[in-house]
């Protein structure tokens, strides 16, 4: 119980840091909108100009909201995969779930030229189906093969295979479709439309709450299936629900933001390091908050303050995540388990 206070303190601190970064991030940009301006506007003391208002509500806030959702959802996917596969290196990206989603998205962007709301929904659904298919394959394989390394290698093979198919599709596609696909694949938080944001909110938020409700069950799965069963966990049902949740979470984020690497795998470890506990009831909120902090921070970096250029978000998160993963692998050699 005494240890728990540390987790609560860390969660508060992360919350404060997140609020600070959030405010800093919406302030950032070529058009200056200060926090006092915004506060005055909200309190009705003075009004922001129409231009400022449009920039704030149509560009900056949706982008930060997207960053927050991606930051909360991807680490949860990673954490669930790490627990269920009992592998510290599992994550949506490594296991090929993001690639499955990318493949679905590629079919929509490169193949069908759907536009508007149809395009938005078909993009989401295609990504879910793609992610879900890879997930099912992993589920099927993991019933037969218990070795965690094998599953990781299979995930890597799935993603390489799908990448190969995607590159063939790119080769045969129209120049304009190709361009929009390449831009999508670099990852962006700023290209999310209003209707996409809507879908994201209505899928991501309920699933995050659902996941939190599965904390106890995830705790029970930490020692492996046999222990889980003898502690009363219904593993078949749990796996199915968790896998579906992960597919939809990772699928949604990938569909609208492009593949975002290393957040899913690295952030749960940062959270574990911070709270030093493995209870999912504490680890899940801590991972979500850490993920949101990292994503908002990455977003600020990607926009290269003081310039007009924007870096692909995937590159920024990878550069942040990779050292964590390397640290993990090196430490893992000493500690044996994580």
């Amino acid at each position, binding site marked *: 119980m005494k240890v728990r206070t540390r987790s609560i303190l860390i969660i508060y601190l992360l919350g404060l840091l997140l609020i600070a970064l959030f405010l800093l991030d919406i302030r950032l940009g070529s058009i200056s909108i200060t926090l006092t301006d915004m506060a005055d506007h909200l309190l009705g003391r003075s009004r922001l100009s129409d231009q400022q208002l449009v920039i704030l509500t149509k560009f900056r806030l949706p982008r930060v909201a997207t960053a927050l959702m991606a930051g909360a959802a991807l680490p949860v996917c990673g954490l669930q995969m790490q627990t269920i596969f009992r592998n510290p290196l599992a994550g949506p990206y490594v296991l090929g779930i993001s690639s499955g989603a990318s493949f679905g998205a590629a079919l929509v962007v490169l193949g069908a030229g759907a536009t508007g709301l149809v395009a938005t929904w078909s993009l989401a659904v295609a990504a879910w189906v793609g992610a879900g298919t890879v997930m099912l394959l992993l589920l099927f394989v993991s019933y037969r093969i218990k070795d965690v390394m094998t599953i990781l290698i299979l995930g890597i093979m799935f993603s390489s295979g799908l990448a190969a198919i995607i590159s063939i599709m790119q080769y045969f596609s129209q120049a304009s479709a190709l361009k929009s696909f390449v831009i999508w694949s670099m990852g962006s938080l700023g290209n999310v439309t209003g209707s996409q944001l809507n879908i994201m909110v209505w899928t991501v938020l309920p699933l995050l709450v659902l996941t939190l409700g599965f*904390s*106890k069950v995830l705790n029970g799965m930490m*020692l492996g299936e*046999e*222990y889980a069963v*003898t502690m009363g966990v219904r593993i078949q049902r749990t796996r199915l629900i968790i896998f579906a949740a992960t597919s939809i979470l990772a699928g949604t984020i990938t569909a609208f933001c492009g593949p975002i690497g290393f957040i899913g795998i690295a952030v749960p470890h940062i959270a574990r390091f911070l709270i030093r506990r493995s209870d999912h009831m504490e680890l899940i909120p801590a991972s979500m908050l850490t993920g949101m902090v990292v994503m908002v921070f990455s977003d600020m970096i990607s926009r290269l303050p003081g310039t007009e250029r924007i870096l692909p978000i995937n590159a920024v998160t990878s550069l942040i995540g990779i050292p964590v993963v390397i640290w993990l692998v090196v430490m893992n050699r000493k500690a*044996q*388990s994580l």
Partner: protein
Amino acid sequence: MSDHKAEHIILLDHFSIGYQKESILLSQLHLTVNRGEMIALIGKNGAGKSTLLKSMIGLVAPLEGVCLLAGIPFEEYSLRERARRVSFVSSQITQLPSLTVEELVGLGRIPYTDWMGRLTAGDHKKIYKAIEEVQMGAFAGRKLENLSDGEKQRAMIARAFVQDTTLMVLDEPTAFLDVPSTFELVRLLSRFKESGRSIVYSTHDLETAIQFADKMWVIHKGRILEGAPEDLGLSGLYNELFSDSGIKYDEQVGRFLSSVAERGFVAVTGEREDLLVWTRKTAERLGYMIKEGADLKIRVESSTAGVSWILQDRKGSTRFKNLYTLARFLIQK
């Protein structure tokens, strides 16, 4: 008789196990586990020890037959009800998550906690008691990866203990342990009987099992023999078990001895009991049988100057400063 029946925690009837109908490992088993007893399951690798334990507690479906848990068929219990009656420890102590001992043991309360998994003050009390019970009090805050194999296994056992079940099933809990740790662990398990729990564990270590178990299940030639360790000893089973491997069970010493090289008889004499014990052990290890009045004699002399061993045969005698040089001499003889 009806009273006797209520004693059964587990009753297996016409129980057949295996992974497929074509490859039955053990068939038509009739076995019982009574309240407050410790059962050791002995058998060679691949004989079906794990499968039997896992079939008994619903981790593997039996091929046929029934398993009654406290008189009621196992399948009629919900998973949570089962978890409150039967706990399990596997031999696997690799690939554990990075938990502290306290966190790990806390997982054992899962069948009792609310949907959020919150531990009550009562739960915490039980957790500390279990940690104390396995003598890990000083390690409560230690991470599993920083523990020795024996400590890890004890922590896993505390997790099962805290689950408050009438039956604890352990699959080769001593698999990775050295001799003293094995002994310690089995003694620890046998203490759990005091709280009315029953323990079933599988092991390769017949010697410790004979010392501590109330009953043994020995898998031999596709059948299971059930009985007190001494019953099975009387039936000559132990020697039969190892008949093809050159190992003999010495009923006097309660140990397994190698019967490979039988070199003849030797008499060991001397004053100090400890010197005699170790000298006999050396001779036995080399394949000699101890017999008074044998032609070959070892006399142990101890004085203020030190200890020396005098080996005497028909040809004469030789003096040695320690058992090692004596043994080297005997081997080359």
